[in-house]
């Protein structure tokens, strides 16, 4: 699993920096809270670019490489921003045996991006995830917080179109 490092120039606001500063101030005495800080930083910035990881490393007094090593180990941490609509196709076992791969393949085909990628217009990003716990509705996908269950490949295009229109 190699994560794509964003090439988009980092644009953080002073408010974001202040928020992260407050988080760091709360946890900086406990290096075991590194992941907590990173999780909160990702909520603030949407992803963990170089500049944010440097702030965390300096704030927590840890080597930058340690922060980066953690950020590339766990699936949750993103090194590039997500699309406006973040699509997660569940590839848990229950969904897989019910044809989730076909759903994922269709989205890949429609959007022209592989899992882990983001469309050039920044509208959709695509990920495969492991069991979102809606096995009864398999196969399922999530777009932001919305769950779509009992999917068939040909249902995918209209759903994406709906988002494209409201964008």
């Amino acid at each position, binding site marked *: 699993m190699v994560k794509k490092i964003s090439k988009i120039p980092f644009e953080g606001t002073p408010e974001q920096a202040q928020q992260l500063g407050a988080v760091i101030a709360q946890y900086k005495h406990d290096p075991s809270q590194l992941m907590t800080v990173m999780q909160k930083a990702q909520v603030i910035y949407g992803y963990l670019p170089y500049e944010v990881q*440097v702030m965390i490393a300096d704030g927590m007094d840890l080597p*930058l*490489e340690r922060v980066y090593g953690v950020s590339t180990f766990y699936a949750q941490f993103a090194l590039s921003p997500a699309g406006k609509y973040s699509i997660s196709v569940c590839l848990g076992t229950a969904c897989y045996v019910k044809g989730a791969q076909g759903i994922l393949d269709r989205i890949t085909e429609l959007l022209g991006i592989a899992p882990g990628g983001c469309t050039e217009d920044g509208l959709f990003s695509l990920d495969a995830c492991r069991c979102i716990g809606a096995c009864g509705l398999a196969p399922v996908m999530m777009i932001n917080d919305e769950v779509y269950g009992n999917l068939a490949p040909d249902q995918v295009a209209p759903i994406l179109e709906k988002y494209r229109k409201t964008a």
Partner: protein
Amino acid sequence: MATAETVKMINLKINGFPVSAPAGSTILEAARSIGIEIPTLCYLKEINEIGACRICMVEVKGARSLVTACVFPVAENMEVFTNTEKVRRSRKLTLELILSTHDKNCLSCVRSGTCELQQLCKEFGVDDPDYYAGGNVHYAFDDSAAHMVRDNNKCILCRRCVAACDMQCISVIGANARGFDTHISSAFDKDLADVSCISCGQCIVNCPTGAIVEKDESAAVLKAINDPTKFTVVHTAPSIRVTLGEAFGYKIGTNVQGQMVAALRRLGFDKVFDTDFGADLTIMEEAHEFLDRVQNGGVLPMITSCSPGWVKYCEHYYPDLLPHLSTCKSPQQMQGAIIKTYYAQKLNLDPKDIFVVGIMPCTAKKFENKRDDQHAVDDLPDVDVSLTTRELARMIDSAGVYFRDLPEEEFDNPLADGTGAAVIFGATGGVMEAALRTAVETLTGEALQNLDFQEVRGTEGIKEASYNVAGMEVKVAVASGTKNAKILMDKLARGEADYHFIEIMGCPGGCVNGGGQPIQHAVVRNFHDLRAMRAASLYDADRNLPVRKSHESPAMKLIYKDFLGEPGSHLAHELLHTSYVARPKYK
């Protein structure tokens, strides 16, 4: 420390032989104690006990699966088998898997012959290196740094380099990504030149394969030697004489000074000098600077600046404390500066035509050469190229010089004749001891009864001592390895360090264990204290030298009389002192 009576002994059997090992020992240690070697790849005693490579697997009667001998503790009545068919098959298969991700251009790899993976493949009969061939990630070469090259395509992810970097408290490299894509790199996969690597090279000496090697500059040296317009001068650091022999099969710590000099002549150098001269000069200048700081309210404690890894560390990590660093250049740079000025004048040579090569135990010296504050003459570097002990050994080999058959020869004069004080520069505490010999005699005006400052000798990370010198209490500290340097620097930053003088060496144990020294397999490093064995030989040399104090060296007397004037003179400052810059942690 627990005494023999308090340590419980555990009785077990290894390959049917009874063994008694202290409680807490690993199977690996117990086996070793009866002469059974269990192969390892990732294991480095105390610094990398991660059980990751799975080469040391052994059978333990009753265990569910094979166990890792490197970390598995012995237990009463345990029965271990280290060489069964099953064990050998497992090791072979693991090797085949590792080989399937390894760039196998072994024929010309610099580590061919010293590669631990290669040796194991031979031992376990891996006859088809492509047995598990499959897809691989191709990694770009990183040759951005002045001192080394990283080739992840040869990396076997034993993480010994990471452990070494962490041991130094630098941690600029680590394991990134996950699973099959796991690789060793810097944060955001930046080039090594763009992170706060201190160039110590500890990762190199700990790498089992050719994934991390020094940047080989021998071609530039050969070119200069073969250039009739160049006058090539080589000088060898104090520790090289006791380590170079290892590359030619000598026992660890053998002093091969005479053969080394002979070999350098046979390589074609015009002059072969001893960096001990530079070391004595360093003492002259540094002792003077120290006394000046003490007497004139300068910044104290003063910290030595011989180790370019340590200097770079201080610049990256403690820029506020740079005023504590002695302004003295390192011995290599002093030597180079004198060669390109005094010696050039003496021979009536244009400094531009002199090519100075330092043979160094150190990879950071390669970085030091490229510092722009190291020019005694115009834009010329004081030293043109620094070669590590390993590069020299390879040059000797490739030049067809049979080292073991060489006669013993003497260094050239006048820039030789090092003292005992200079030769111990190669061991942690040596600079301090050398400086004390000179400073104490200067302050008291009396000859020292005992020249051995035992308190600052030995391989402990931090040593402290206090001396009453002419009514004044002088508190000193010695640290080796930047992890220990960090402890002292943090203390200093907190205002809790009331030392007058601190010696710091970037590598643990000092130059004898430098990042440029001959490779010793982990198997050797785990069961021998290389630092102590090599250092002992330096202290022997010191004891046997006629002059053991820098200020009594005839060469020093000559150079100050002939050229420099007094220690700390204007000319000395211009040629032998330097400045430092704060360097960012991130670029």
